[in-house]
């Protein structure tokens, strides 16, 4: 298999097994040149293992991956020249300065002194670290280190960039700065970016296409909009009830516009195409039947709903990052 001009990465039935545990199960996908491709899934879904196989850090048990036109097993060196990688852990040397970190990396890629002299200030500028260039990285915040590592990963002008959980552990301001930088990179250089994340918002904001991974399996792959469209109903009403009668779900399903009703961890998820109206009708219905509504909220379909729809469970790690209209305080 060779990557075509439109495909930067081609993954075919990639599998990784550690003893009896299968971390990645026959995953196949392609990443188009110039797109930001997201692997979305909870911790332990196999995203890092997948990225490590694509970046030659872990040999696959079976299957094939071609990155930048190079097979990850047969031509690992070719892959390493073609890619820039920002691993999940902060891998910049805290005992070196920002400039030294980039310079050492540039030497590992064989850049000459004149190339380094020209490139390093430019890279530092592009990640907003010029004034910190001679400061030890140990004194940097997590966001600054992440930006430095992005600059470091770009030192050899790679064709494809891998970012493993690029904003995990960062505060919201740093996270936004990293997002902005990733967007700029794509616009400025036409770089292909593959990132993993367990943040819905991150995937939604950055990615052209998203592959949802759960338990090592790729369960859905499309653009964020199409993924959301694939979930029945345009809105999701979440509600919690006290002592609902046995036929309560069936009763809700009969409401106008409701597509489906599911219960997950005691929370009723109602997919509907007329969210606010459904909430009103639900409240009336509850009053009629003597059911206490402990909490109700409504929002447009999110990637969380997509994840729930495809995997049957919520992406709990991302719960704190969602922007829902939580109305529970009204019913306390």
């Amino acid at each position, binding site marked *: 298999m060779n990557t075509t001009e439109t495909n930067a990465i081609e993954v075919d039935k990639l599998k990784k097994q550690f003893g009896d545990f299968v971390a990645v199960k026959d995953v196949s996908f392609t990443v188009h040149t110039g797109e930001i491709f997201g692997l979305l899934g909870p911790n332990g879904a196999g995203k890092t293992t997948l990225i*490590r196989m694509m*970046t*030659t*850090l*872990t*040999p696959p048990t079976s299957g094939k991956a071609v990155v930048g036109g190079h097979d990850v097993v047969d031509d690992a*060196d070719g892959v*390493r*020249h073609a*890619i820039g*990688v920002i*691993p*999940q*852990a*902060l*891998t*910049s*040397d805290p005992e070196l300065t920002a400039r030294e970190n980039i310079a050492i*990396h540039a030497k*590992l*890629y*064989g850049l000459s002194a004149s190339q380094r002299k020209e490139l390093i200030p430019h890279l530092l500028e592009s990640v907003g670290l010029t004034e910190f260039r001679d400061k030890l990285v140990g004194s940097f915040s997590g966001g600054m280190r992440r930006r430095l*590592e992005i600059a*470091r990963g770009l030192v050899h002008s790679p064709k494809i960039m891998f970012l493993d959980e690029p904003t995990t552990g960062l505060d919201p301001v740093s996270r936004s700065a990293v997002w902005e930088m990733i967007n700029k990179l794509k616009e400025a250089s036409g770089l292909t970016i593959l990132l993993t994340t367990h943040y819905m918002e991150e995937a939604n904001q950055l990615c052209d296409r998203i592959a949802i991974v759960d338990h090592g399996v790729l369960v859905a792959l499309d653009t964020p909009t199409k993924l959301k469209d694939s979930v029945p109903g345009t809105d999701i009403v979440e509600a919690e009830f006290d002592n609902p009668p046995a036929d309560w779900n069936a009763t809700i399903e009969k409401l106008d516009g409701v597509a489906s009703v599911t219960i997950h961890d005691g929370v009723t998820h109602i997919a509907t195409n007329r969210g606010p109206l459904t909430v009103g009708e639900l409240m009336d219905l509850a009053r009629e039947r003597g059911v206490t509504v402990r909490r109700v909220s409504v929002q447009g379909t999110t990637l969380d709903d997509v994840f729930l729809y495809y995997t049957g469970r919520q992406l709990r790690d991302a719960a704190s990052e969602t922007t829902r209209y939580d109305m529970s305080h009204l019913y306390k």
Partner: protein
Amino acid sequence: MKLQRILAIIERDMRKFFRSPALMVSSMIFPLMQLVVLGYAFGGKIKGIKVAVVDEDHSTASRDVRQRFDAIEAGPRTLAIQNYSFLSDAEVDLRTGFVRAVIYIPRDYSRRVDQGNRPRIAFIEDNTDNFVTSEVLNRMQSLVQDLNQGLNPFQPGQRLSVPTPRLNPLIDLQVVELYPYIEYIKYLLSGSIAMAIFIVAMIGGGITFIDDKSRGLHEGYLVTPIKKSELILGLIFSGAIKGLMAGTSITLIGGLIAGIDRLWDPVRLLYLGLVLITTSVAMISFMFLLMVRVSDPLVPRAMFGVLNTLLYFPSGAIYPVEGFPPWLRWISYIDPFTYAVHALKALLLKNTGFVGIYTDVAVLLGFSILLVSLSVAFFRRQI
């Protein structure tokens, strides 16, 4: 104060302790190892000291003297006798450290025995190791005393089958010390220099390497096109440079403190540099091989004391290797410290030049090549 909280802290610490084999090894195996190694490394009976015997007399009387040496070699095995034809050859080997002492029976020995005219035996000693020197000298003195009394040195009171002629006047043992008196601080200096290099190797090749690995810093390098041989050689040479810097500092500062004569002799400094470089490369590659598959940062810290005991004390840095039991001698044979200490002693105490160190340098180099090759083979380029 609540007992439950105290118990909670105790429980936490005990659980962590029992789940960390490195800490358990460090706390339980290390003291035992120190007991055994130190117990046997000090004050053991010194055996197998290489002594050159030059018999220019070739007479019945001189053969009697040589037979007594042979009896010591076969009996208590204090000496390992090597016969030389010429005094000049023996002196060269004495100066370069291949033998520890020369016993010279001059051409006129038997004539003087016959004449009763103060027959002389010369004892030329490499007095850089006081433990060895006093052991050999004691043997020599008792041997001459026995000769003078016509007694078998190993079965006191019993006459030899061939009666020894009673000498009158008595045999005169002439002792020649090759070097000025060597204080113990000078004797210890070589071990301290090797120790400085070992500490750098332990910190750079062990602790920092594993810390960087566990912090994920290596992942940043492994995704670049660097080959594992390049990465390992880079790490080993950087460690060796640091080792050389530490070794040079201790050589010069320690040399001044200990009062090494003509410390600034440029030729000797050149050879010292050679020994320090090869020692540094050997030590760091040794450490690197030990740590190549380790990922727990506690392991190198826990091993620090164990390795220190296991490498420093059997090296002959503080007590001669000839005083060790066989199992400890075997450790000293595969211990890079031994060759470093031997070469440094040859240069600092005897200023032997290249002839006194080339074997050690060759062993250290061979050792380094083997260890680096094994490190490359065992290093995992992948995670």
